[in-house]
């Protein structure tokens, strides 16, 4: 196995109609993540249904049978790898519960893949997908213009969709947009470049997924280390060892760095960074390490290690975009539990400022609640200060979940402004 392989997480959204299942089936098949006997059964089913071609959508078709059985459609994770990269697909269905599922799938994604049918061009659904991916600050967006075979691989069809989509996303935060004409069914521009569209000079979809540069997407400047757990071996050999365990959320940490611990504000220097039994030179996101400090400070779970001149502002007043995920609506004065990095507190809903219509981007100010699958701007007051950054700068220190204290259910997800 090639040690230099890295990992790309991407989210897809859409329904069976726009060819998403066929596309995923094609990627899994061409990267050999599919068994030959699975393929044989798909071929047999296609034949028995009288199709002219092998319907690759059947490969990922857990969803359709589940729908027939009445099980909630949900995010499904799928895996494939090429010699260059391992891929994790968060596959979210387009129709039912789409906002909740897409927000969930997009929260961890490096890249979002939106499909449109070349015959239809942009639809309300494709606009909605782009809005959600932008709201979740997914750094890379790919629009796959699918079913090019059904429009005779016409360059003008592609150009029109290209113009429409570019104009639409200029109103959103989309740092990197790539638009690729494909036919998932015929395999054009999916794995290899198609000779049917000589006018298209960009990469195939898989080539783009393999090469899109993601290392600089994380914040490597502002040191943020939420303390997760304190490692204190109660053994003679390691009597004085005290390691602050956690996952680097931002910046590059090095031995000797001057650091400040929040909320106490006490300062020290990094005495060493350990990864298991080895001391390492530097730690960066998303590494899980243990940090030792030169001074004996009182540091515990929920604290954050940062730099004295570069620290988040502790605040009990949180202004955020919240995606609501349960049928019982969010209302002003409601009390909830809030989990932010490794810190858990209670939160009071002070104000629901507006509800965002994700189809029109209209802000509805005359609202007093947020219902299931709605997104709105909300002000919260927390029992403890949260050590947070704007979500736009750091997706780890800028995000939180809301939990119903009675049921224990995750009811909302927030992105701090």
């Amino acid at each position, binding site marked *: 196995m090639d040690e230099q392989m890295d990992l790309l997480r991407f989210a897809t959204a859409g329904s069976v109609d726009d060819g998403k299942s066929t596309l995923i089936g094609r990627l899994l098949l061409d990267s050999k993540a599919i068994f030959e006997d699975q393929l044989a059964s798909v071929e047999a089913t296609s034949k028995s249904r009288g199709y002219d071609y092998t319907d690759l959508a059947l490969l990922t078709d857990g969803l359709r049978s589940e729908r027939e059985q009445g099980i909630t459609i949900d995010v499904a994770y799928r895996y494939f790898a090429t010699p260059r990269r391992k891929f994790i697909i968060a596959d979210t269905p387009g129709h039912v519960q789409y906002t909740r599922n897409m927000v969930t799938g997009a929260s961890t994604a490096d890249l979002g893949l939106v499909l449109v049918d070349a015959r239809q061009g942009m639809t309300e659904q494709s606009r909605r997908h782009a809005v959600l991916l932008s709201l979740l600050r997914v750094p890379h967006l790919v629009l796959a213009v699918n079913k090019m075979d059904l429009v005779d691989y016409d360059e003008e069809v592609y150009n029109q969709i290209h113009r429409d989509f570019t104009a639409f996303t200029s109103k959103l935060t989309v740092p990197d947009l790539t638009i690729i004409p494909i036919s998932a069914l015929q395999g054009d521009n999916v794995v290899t470049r198609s000779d049917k569209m000589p006018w298209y000079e960009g990469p195939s979809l898989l080539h783009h997924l393999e090469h899109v*540069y993601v290392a600089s997407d994380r914040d490597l400047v502002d040191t943020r280390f939420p303390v997760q757990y304190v490692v204190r071996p109660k053994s003679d050999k390691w009597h004085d060892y005290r390691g602050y365990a956690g996952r680097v959320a931002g910046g590059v940490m090095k031995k000797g760095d001057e650091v400040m611990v929040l909320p106490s504000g006490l300062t020290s220097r990094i005495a060493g960074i350990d990864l298991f039994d080895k001391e390492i030179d530097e730690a960066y996101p998303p590494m899980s390490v243990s940090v030792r400090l030169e001074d004996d400070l009182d540091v515990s779970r929920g604290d954050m290690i940062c730099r004295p001149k570069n620290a988040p502002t502790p605040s009990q007043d949180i202004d955020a975009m919240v995606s609501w995920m349960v049928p019982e609506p969010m209302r002003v004065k409601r009390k909830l539990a809030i989990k932010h990095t490794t810190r858990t507190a209670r939160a009071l809903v002070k104000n629901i400022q507006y509800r965002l219509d994700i189809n029109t981007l209209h802000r509805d100010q005359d609202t007093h609640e947020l219902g299931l699958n709605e997104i709105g701007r909300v002000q919260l007051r927390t029992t403890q200060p949260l050590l947070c950054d704007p979500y736009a700068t750091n997706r*780890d220190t800028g995000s939180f979940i809301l939990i119903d204290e009675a049921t224990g259910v995750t009811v909302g997800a927030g992105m701090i402004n």
Partner: protein
Amino acid sequence: MSTQAGYQLSHLDELEAESIHIFREVVAEFEKPVLMFSGGKDSIVMLRLAEKAFYPARVPFPVLQVDTGYDFPEVIETRDRWVERLGVRLIIASVEQAIKDGIVVDDGKTSRNRLQIGTLLHVIEEEGFTAAFGGGRRDEEKARAKERVYSHRDEFGQWDPKNQRPELWSLYNGRIHEGEHMRIFPLSNWTELDIWSYIGREQIEIPSIYFAHNRRVFERDGMLLSESDHNPLRNAEEVKERQVRFRTVGDLTLTGCLESSASTVEEIIEEVAISRVTERGATRGDDRFSEAAMEDRKKEGYF
């Protein structure tokens, strides 16, 4: 630690970091976690990750194995070496004992595999465990593809797939009520190939039966089973010696092996990579890997 230019972790390092994060989060938030140990490669990889997560302190939770009475001796030996080296408490929940105590009923038709479930739930309840780590991976099957890292179980130990909590970023929700527990799957995002690559990279000790060895076996339902006192031969079944290895380990009366000469992790990785095409073929006793498949994959730069 292997890095690429521009502060990018390799895929194994990123998976490792994610799993370590999960282990620490659970220990920080749950009162009484336990690690469910099957003896297989996945649960050994979990032990390795737990060791890394808390080093130089000891792994701060016990290891629980449900003993079917039909475990491979090689698996028990490896388990005991791991448990001794890590200095963790081992809890053995015996299906035999559970039958005697009337906790589960052996009606002669139910397999030991199924009787494990009642035995396991009983121990979790008795000991009051609030979180149980399991080695499940999402690439294993379609239903698992949707299971959360934190998978909620009600007071009857049941999973309700219709009512799963959304899981966002790396913010896990560990809220449970009295009597409920959480199943935790730190290997959710690993594939079988990732597991083997990691075993190779970390030189992790796994039971010897994963590697090619000579064994007296017989064929049943298209599978090669190990000769054993627990597994009396039925008519016309014939024992022969073959070079085999196991892909999974479990109840030895049910776990089939395959003919293989793969004796190193590298050879197994190669075999797994190819057998992704014909894995089911192997358990159906159909033919094995084709030379052409091997060649095709090598041509494409695989390994």
